[in-house]
């Protein structure tokens, strides 16, 4: 508007004053901004740098390759295969539900699995990648990889997964790996960060579990730059981890395979051990199962089949199964008596068929009695009365002491799950366990391997090997680690009188090679491979008074689960022992009929290194043996795949 010069001057002055105030305020505020910049960018720069580093650079673990496991000849028993899988990270995915729905258009995920996954996403930390699909085909994998940019949080990965080429033969020895569970983590103090990787494979059972720390290896790390959706932009650095140690077991895969095949449909177990070194050449428990099923996540139907089978395929009967050793224990009683000086090898005992003790009769298996017997004859014919008589004179504690010396009733240090301790009872043990005094009847029962005495096939194999070699061998399962032989300490002598051992061995030789021996039918006729052994039959039932009155019922008339266990231990060659075998057929009936023939075949296979020649068998049996050999389903011999040391 029109304004007088005076007004205009007034206006200009006013504006100038206020403008200068404003300008001052603006400059002051700009100074505040500058100071703030200075503080953040100069004084606190290092802090922010650190934060920025954590923001964009993430440390990712490189899972190491799990150590391989070979048999004693270098044949692969546990390897790793490439596994294409897809993971989702909730933090990056945002809406997991919709991402999963999109993903299901590309790869098959069942409704049940999808529901389970959504539950898992809620449970786990948002930064943990969850494996949503595993073992994809190459086509499925590439389909996901191509579409990954439009699937936030989805990462296609190539990982390694355990595979067992000889799953059934080695399921019990090797055990299996499976995804880490919360329960597993709760057991471990300071768990390796590797275990935080979802579905990281951890040994759950057997060698895989016991030697987990050797097999796992050390994780490598990758420094990767990621964007805010978690997708890797580039790799900044890489530090390779160390793969797990490769193990070579003492087991011979061919013998193991043969042993399991030979056990057939029985619920049975066999251990073959080198009597000089303690190397375990075979440890087969039948029936077996496919350990690969567990690696992949076994279906509940399959699992139920395994758990409901009365032959207990999941149990490793070689080390976990405890049985009364029956007559195979008589060598212990015999050696205890000889060592205590109670008897000499030539002393005889008369067997009238029973022993009367405190108004109770203890029968010999042969009710008519054996007549007068010396030690060798008592073993040969497995006379019970001989041992009833001897045991009363030495007492239980001396017997159990000898049992421990022979490797019974102690837990052998093997990298396998639930290795049983067994039991060689003493007076003190019974007092502590049951609060009752030891009675003489207990001693009599123990003397023939019944009553409280318990042992696993492993125990009996060690016992047999110690008797055969006279040395205190210990069982050994791992032969070398990364190609370096595991050093075994000098094997001490048992400290038993060689004459006593010779007498027991003579008795065992007679069991098989004498016409009156209990296992004469299972003899080996090849002169270099003659076998020495002992049969055993252990009761799983208490014979009731009524049953006793009617007389002993034939095993075949009983239901399977009430039949006797058939046992057999042996070493060969009788004159220069190399291998010992112990074998049990659960509810198989008598040891001589059910166990000894199988043990002989396995022993011959071990001695021959291949299917035994028919010439090793008595002529009358060859036809039957031939047809039986033809029906066995065996693996073809294989050359070592790992280039490892061969035996």
């Amino acid at each position, binding site marked *: *508007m*029109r*304004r007088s*010069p005076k*007004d*205009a001057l*007034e*206006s*200009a002055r*006013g*504006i*100038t*004053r*206020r*403008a*200068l*105030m*404003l*300008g001052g305020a*603006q*400059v002051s*505020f*700009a100074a*505040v*901004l*500058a100071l*703030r*910049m*200075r503080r*953040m*960018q*100069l004084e*606190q*720069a290092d*802090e*922010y*740098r650190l*934060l*920025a580093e954590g*923001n*964009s*650079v993430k440390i990712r673990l490189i899972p190491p390759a799990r150590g391989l496991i070979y048999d004693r000849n270098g044949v692969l028993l546990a390897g790793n295969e490439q596994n294409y899988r897809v993971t989702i990270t909730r*933090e990056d995915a945002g809406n997991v539900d919709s991402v999963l729905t999109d993903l299901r258009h590309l790869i098959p995920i069942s409704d049940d699995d999808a529901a389970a996954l959504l539950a898992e996403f809620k449970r786990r930390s948002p930064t943990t990648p969850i494996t949503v699909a595993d073992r994809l085909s190459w086509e499925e994998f590439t389909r996901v990889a191509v579409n990954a940019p439009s699937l936030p949080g989805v990462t296609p990965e190539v990982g390694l997964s355990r595979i067992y080429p000889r799953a059934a033969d080695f399921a019990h020895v090797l055990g299996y790996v499976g995804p880490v569970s919360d329960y597993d983590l709760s057991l471990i103090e300071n768990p390796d960060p590797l275990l935080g990787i979802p579905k990281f494979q951890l040994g759950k059972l057997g060698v895989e579990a016991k030697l987990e720390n050797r097999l796992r290896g050390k994780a490598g790390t990758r420094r990767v*730059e*990621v*964007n*805010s*959706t978690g997708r890797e*932009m580039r790799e900044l650095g890489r530090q390779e981890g160390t793969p797990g140690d490769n193990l070579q077991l003492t087991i011979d895969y061919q013998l193991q395979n043969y042993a399991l095949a030979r056990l057939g449909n029985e619920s049975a177990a066999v251990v073959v051990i080198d009597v000089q070194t303690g190397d375990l050449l075979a440890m087969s428990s039948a029936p077996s199962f496919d350990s690969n099923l567990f690696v992949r996540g076994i279906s509940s139907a399959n699992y139920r089949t395994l758990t409901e089978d009365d032959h207990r395929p999941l149990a490793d009967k070689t080390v976990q199964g405890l049985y009364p050793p029956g007559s195979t224990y008589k060598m212990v009683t015999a050696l205890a008596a000889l060592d205590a000086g109670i008897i000499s090898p030539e002393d005889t005992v008369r067997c009238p068929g029973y022993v009367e003790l405190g108004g109770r009769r203890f029968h010999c298996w042969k009710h008519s009695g054996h007549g007068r017997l010396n030690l060798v004859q008592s073993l040969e014919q497995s006379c019970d009365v001989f041992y009833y008589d001897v045991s009363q004179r030495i007492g239980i504690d001396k017997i159990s002491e000898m049992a421990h010396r022979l490797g019974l009733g102690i837990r052998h240090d093997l990298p396998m799950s639930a290795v049983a301790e067994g039991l060689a009872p003493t007076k003190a043990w019974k007092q502590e366990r049951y609060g009752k005094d030891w009675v003489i009847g207990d001693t009599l029962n123990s003397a023939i391997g019944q009553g409280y005495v318990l042992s696993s096939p492993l125990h009996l194999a060690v016992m047999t090997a110690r008797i055969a070699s006279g040395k205190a061998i210990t069982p050994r399962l791992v032969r070398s680690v990364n190609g370096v032989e595991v050093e075994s300490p000098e094997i001490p002598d048992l400290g038993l009188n060689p004459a006593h051992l010779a007498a027991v061995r003579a008795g065992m030789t007679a069991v098989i090679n004498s016409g009156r021996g209990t296992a004469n039918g299972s003899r080996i006729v090849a002169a270099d491979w003659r076998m020495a052994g002992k049969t055993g039959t252990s009761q799983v039932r208490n014979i009731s008074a009524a049953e006793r009155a009617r007389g002993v019922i034939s095993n075949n008339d009983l239901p399977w689960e009430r039949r006797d266990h058939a046992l057999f231990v042996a070493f060969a060659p009788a004159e220069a022992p190399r291998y010992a075998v112990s074998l049990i057929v659960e509810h198989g009936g008598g040891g001589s009929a059910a166990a000894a023939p199988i043990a002989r075949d396995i022993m011959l296979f071990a001695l021959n290194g291949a299917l035994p020649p028919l010439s090793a068998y008595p002529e009358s049996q060859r036809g039957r043996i031939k047809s039986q050999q033809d029906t066995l389903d065996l693996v073809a011999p294989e050359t070592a795949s790992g280039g490892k040391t061969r035996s």
Partner: protein
Amino acid sequence: MSYLEHNLKAVPTGFRKIFYLNWPLIVLLTAVACVGFLMLYSVAGGTLDKWAAPQMKRFGVGMVGMIVVAFVPIWFWRNLSTLAYVVSFLLLVAVEFFGSIGMGAQRWIEIGPLRLQPSELMKIALVMMLAAYYDWLDVSKTSRPLWVAIPAALILAPTFLVLKQPDLGTAILLVMGGGLVMFVAGVSLWYFGTVLAAGVGLIWLTFESRGTSWQLIKDYQFSRIDTFLDPGSDPLGAGYNITQAQIALGSGGWAGRGFMQGTQSRLNFLPEKHTDFIFTTLAEEFGFLGAFSLLALYIGIIAFCLHSALTNKDRFAALVTLGIAGTFFLFFAVNMSMVMGLVPVVGVPLPLVSYGGTAMMILLMAFGLVQSAHVHRPR
């Protein structure tokens, strides 16, 4: 004969006006815009096409617009002020009914091929309106209640509409920009003291309204305030912007990570990296040196405007120059304070640097007014 008309003979005419433009100001504006192009090039991952090239085009068009505006005599613009205000106001009303949705708020209106943000227009129109008002008003009446109520109403009416969109940032800028013109025009300081007190009361009332039926601002605005007060409370949610911005800014250090080397911004850690948060990229890649230099350029622009206003004896010209410079100051001051965590996150772009068409063009037109005032000042 007015003082202005009296001195008209000294005002340059025709193309000679080009020599009388405030050239240092143009150089500074271009310098700031160039910083913007550089940053947009960088945040786009080294491509021009994404943001930098369109921004350059708009800057070119805006510069031409600025010169055109500058060539038109300032009194023409003064006479147009009321019309500009009324049109802007009507557009704001229109946006309330027909506006399209952008960024969760109604801010845009489309007239033919033109996509307009009336609230941007209003920032300048309000400054013009108030400057014209005080040019018209007798200086002695400036502090009288009735004559203070009128400009207050002129400010609050559009503010209310903008707040309803809702656009807190623009609303604050309108109130502060308008208040700034009133301040410069000489309104008694008592009024400002009173308004300040009332403002504090209003903030209190706003917090009181939370969760009630008459809640004054939207939930997301509340959450932004919450996270401003404690960004750590929700580092991956609403506090994400602030935390990431500060990490980017702070990690720049003295000289920065180097051009195109900013890991934070290029790796998508920053939201709105090309718009409201572009300053963080600059601070990260060029460090304190870069950030401070930009601040210095801005202050330079303000200084030249202030000098131009102080040497201008025309009341409207001086007021409009100071008002526009003040609004410009508010833009960058609020934006920088926001990314540096001094004030809550409100949607205010960094002037001439942030990607955005309307904002930049309108700002350059506004500097056209400053130029026009400069060229056509009474001598």
